[in-house]
């Protein structure tokens, strides 16, 4: 059943439709991860669960932060805080492309009128030591999703391979709703008792964070936090696997990975403050990657990692 486009009137409806669709396809509906991340991929439900042999299927919204993209809420398309919708299925099913196209139909994109294209775009995350092959999906010339078959994460080969779909929700919704400026987009139904636009919810925060990200964040403190996170990750992973209190084997892959996520976001903030030189950049990325690898190494020794 293809819903009629005109029945879609708000940002949240699109989000709900996607969730309903993927829930119907058997994905576990997870919630956003409770740490600042740059993209939905950082959620351990993707990064860590893509590793090991255990099957997995999950979908979730992930608020994502890219401090350098802040435009004080003025740019029609750019935000330092935005939403990604993420789907991950392992092993990737043979009809993943058809499943994906079904999700576009579910949010009212009529395949008989629109031009959908799979354009080569290989994905690589130097900070996660991860890469995969796939496409950016174009709808009438606009990139609406990223479609990737994971080949490696944290330096480990993915066996089996996960299929990962990432939708940039604001952009997709603006397209479907025919809105030109993100801040004008209805967040809830326009005829709700208290109608809210995206701007009502986020304009002020975009301003506040843009100022803080670019000019105010204490770089010495950020740098110290980065180093603390790095040290804590190493300390967590160096703890013996056998827990003396419970007598059980408990490898703390997730707590260590939290520190990796924090280090990655702190690096992004330092980058936005413009205090990282070109040469240092590579070194920082290398340090985060080392953390991601260490966490992946630890995860694959745990039950969820297929050990």
């Amino acid at each position, binding site marked *: 059943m293809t819903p009629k486009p005109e029945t879609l009137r708000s940002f949240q409806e699109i989000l709900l439709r996607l969730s309903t669709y993927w829930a119907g396809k058997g994905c576990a509906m997870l919630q956003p991860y409770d740490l600042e991340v740059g993209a939905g991929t950082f959620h351990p439900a993707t990064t860590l669960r893509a590793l090991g042999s255990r099957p997995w299927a999950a979908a979730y919204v992930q608020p994502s932060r890219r401090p350098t993209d802040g435009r004080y809420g003025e740019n029609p398309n750019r935000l330092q805080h935005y939403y990604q919708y993420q789907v991950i299925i392992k092993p990737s099913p*043979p009809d993943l492309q058809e499943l994906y196209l079904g999700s576009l139909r579910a949010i009212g994109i009529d395949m008989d009128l*629109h*031009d959908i294209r*799979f354009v*080569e775009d290989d994905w690589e995350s130097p900070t996660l030591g991860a890469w995969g092959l796939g496409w950016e999906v174009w709808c009438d010339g606009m990139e609406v999703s990223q479609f990737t078959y994971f080949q490696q994460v944290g330096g480990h080969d993915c*066996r089996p391979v996960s299929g990962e779909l990432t939708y940039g929700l604001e952009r997709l919704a603006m*397209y479907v709703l025919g809105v030109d400026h993100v801040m004008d987009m209805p967040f809830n139904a326009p005829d709700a008792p208290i109608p809210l636009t995206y701007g009502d919810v986020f304009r002020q925060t975009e301003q506040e964070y843009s100022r803080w990200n670019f000019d105010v964040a204490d770089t010495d403190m950020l740098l110290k936090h980065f180093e603390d996170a790095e040290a804590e990750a190493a300390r967590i992973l160096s703890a013996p696997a056998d827990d003396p209190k419970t007598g059980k084997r408990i490898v703390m892959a997730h707590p260590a990975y939290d520190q990796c996520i924090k280090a990655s976001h702190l690096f992004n903030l330092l980058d936005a403050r413009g205090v990282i030189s070109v*040469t240092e950049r590579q070194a920082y990325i290398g340090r985060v990657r080392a953390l991601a690898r260490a966490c992946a190494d630890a995860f694959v020794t745990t039950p969820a990692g297929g050990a």
Partner: protein
Amino acid sequence: MPDLLIELLSEEIPARMQARAKADLKARVTDGLVEAGLTYASAGAFATPRRLALSIEGLLAASPSTSEERKGPKVGAPEKAIEGFVRGAGVTRDQLEVRDDKKGQVYFARIDKPGRPAEVIVAEVLEQVIRTFPWPKSMRWGDGDLRWVRPLHSILCVLSDDSGATVVPMSVDGITAGAVTRGHRFMAPDAFSVTGLEDYATKLKRAHVMLSSEERADHIWNDATNQAFALGLEVVEDRALLEEVAGLVEWPVVLMGEIGAEFLSLPPEVLQTSMREHQKFFSVRDPKRAQIVRFVTVANRETADDGATILAGNNKVLSARLSDARFFWENDLRIATSDLGQWVRALDNVTFHNKLGSQGERVNRIAALAREIAPLVGADADLAEQAARFAKADLSSEMVYEFPELQGLMGRYYIEAAGFPAEVAAAAQEHYSPLGPSDSVPTAPVSVAVALADKIDTLTGFWAIDEKPTGSKDPFALRRAAIGSFRLVAENEVRLGLSKIIASYLQKNMGGETVAVALDTFGDLNLSEIALADDTISDAISSRQSSALLSNSLSSLMQIADAERLSLGQIKSRINAQLYRIRVDLLAFLHDRLKVYLRDQDIPHDVIDACLAMPGNDDLTLLVKRARALAAFLKTDNGANLLQGFKRANNILSQAEAKDGVEYSYGADVKFAEDETERTLFAALDEADKTIRPAMEAEDFGAAMAAMAELRRPIDDFFEAVQINAESQVLRRNRLNLLSRIRTTCLQVADLTRLEG
């Protein structure tokens, strides 16, 4: 004779890989078949975004049977040897034949290999090809192990002849071959079966798939140009984009849209680049206004609204993109017109290479060099320096950050807008050229000065920090920089001594004197203390002098000082000796590249050697002129013969000199001449010298060589008539001295001893 049809249907294959994949499929399958004994009449390969296909016509129905005879051990040989032979030949003991041979009775085996049916061979070959296909990048999917460019969904493999079509039984990692394929992903997704190429192509077309990439490209181009023509417009040709777009669609539908009036003030290159890079749109130009006014996008389907929705969507995306571009352009212009220097200063904070410092340092070095080179290329020194300082300013602009391929060109726009002289603006665009052998070479003197300075800085800088090209690795494109500088010099007939320029560059940037000055600012330091404080001091100096090159020079100095406790004077001379080695090494590399460059212009390597051996060999224009003249001269009859005469004279002379232990270089006198040919040769040499000397001074190598050619006959006649090693010592010495005159005269032009043949 059956025909074979293969199709590998997958998820979308990257456009850039399709042409190569098509060729690889054809080559690998046909090679495999032929190797197994299956020859064929013709083959053709096809690629669309979702499929690779191969059609082979006139294939043998089976490989021919073969028969081979193999000679074995003698009768009565050890049992083990006979058993081994039987096993190796794949026959049974009683199939062996006994025949008489020179050495007695010997076993022979006859090995008959029956032919195998085509379907067996095809199945083997195709499986092997799929498993080892040379994709530039491949992947696994699901829980399988097979690798393909994207998930492989089905294999169609059909042999057909007059009696009908049969599926070749085979399967690869659970994908079993059939006679079935599918049409367009959206317009005709249902499966259908096919019997052969014609049936396949016809049914595909009905299912909205154009099988041939050439047909798709032609269709796009014709439709786009027709639509443009109807409006009095023209599509900007872009072969690479056309090929790419033809690889993105199975059913191309050309749609033309308008560019919003608010974007028409953008430079055409910006419109074109933004549309091509982000949207894969063609640009459509209005020849009357010399402006890009429309775009062409290619959709992958027909729709009930004739593409209206698709076009509207594309228009919207384009507007967002161009809004960005306009934002960059307007912001950049504001900065360029108020303070262009701000961009130049920003380059101080951008690393070029950690051992060569920032882009800012690099620009300083290039500016100093451009100033030095300017008078040699007929440019105003102040203008050249100014042009060099602004040449890389646009690297700080937002537009170039977004579209790196517009570097230089944007610089030109911005520098013009800032009101600087046109030569300065042009140099920003042209100083990167020539980038390749077919790229055009700048001719405007200021551009030439900056372009040369840029390339010499790159070459010398990377040489000084020991980052030379090795084998196939040339990460900093130094070979390209070398050829670029040759072309700049040779095609503009610039006269300059590269060696001198390189020497002064090295001295200025990292020479002993400069280091000494830098050290002096620290007062009377004990050198071993300096060595201990290595990092601190070179950091301090590099920040003070703002020169990474100098700090490199310093750190090698620290090592010397530490090891040997040298005086400042000794250190200076050590450093200068090191710089000398760098320069000699770099010149040797340049001469090497020069040989490659000139060889490509049909100048043989020995001719280049003969010219390189002459003084002034770092003056490229002179060198090329000399080499061209010599190569042309040697192609003439006189030239080739004169060379023989010269060689003969030189050989006799060298032997005599070696034997007698003296050098016959002076004192040939016509009054001792006995033979008429001898006298003629004297006269001819006098005559030739009269012309050659002034011609050489005027660097008129053609005239000099023409005069030299006049010697051919007298030299030949002389050797014909006269015995050099005469009885009379006076006569012999005079004749050897005469040979020496031939040598001296000829060697003025080039070192002919280095010529072969």
